[in-house]
């Protein structure tokens, strides 16, 4: 499933035009990205939480050359699905 398929569902259910639906899907995703980029978590009840986590630096290895390298501290986004979504997946 892609953005455009989500936009068609919005178009059917909300009655916005195809173009407006595509734009609004983009706005929703852009808004979430902006908030996460500012370091704030986004919690969508009934769906899940997008969390910004800080990773410490660690010793890694270049798998190709076997060379030891230091992986710098960084920030990553993790997603924790809500229990509702997890339960939905078990029904099969």
């Amino acid at each position, binding site marked *: 499933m892609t953005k455009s398929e989500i936009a068609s569902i919005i178009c059917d259910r909300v009655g916005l035009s195809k173009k407006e639906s595509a734009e609004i899907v983009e706005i929703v995703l852009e808004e979430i990205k902006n908030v996460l980029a500012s370091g704030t978590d986004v919690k*969508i009840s009934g769906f899940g939480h997008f969390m910004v986590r800080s990773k410490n630096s660690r010793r890694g290895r270049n798998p190709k050359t076997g060379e030891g390298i230091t992986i710098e501290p960084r920030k990553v986004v993790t997603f924790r699905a809500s229990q509702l979504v997890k339960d939905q997946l078990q029904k099969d």
Partner: protein
Amino acid sequence: MTKSELIDAVANANKDITRREAEVVVSTVFSAISDELANGGRIELRGFGSFSIKTRDSRTGRNPKTGESVHVPAKTVPHFKPGKELRERVDK
């Protein structure tokens, strides 16, 4: 940020839609994603990330309190992989 704050932000970002419409749009985006996951599908949102499902084999676990062995059945769990743009923007 919570779901209702996201709805407010989306409504403010696009003056052509009402808050009520923004609410339906946001809910529809997330229910479309979870429905697709429940159908075993994969959702790819360019610049944001992709949602997919992973299977976990059944295993023998242990009740940490009693030390008793318990059978943990196989299950399907949701997975989110942040896209390139989101990864780069969060780690700045």
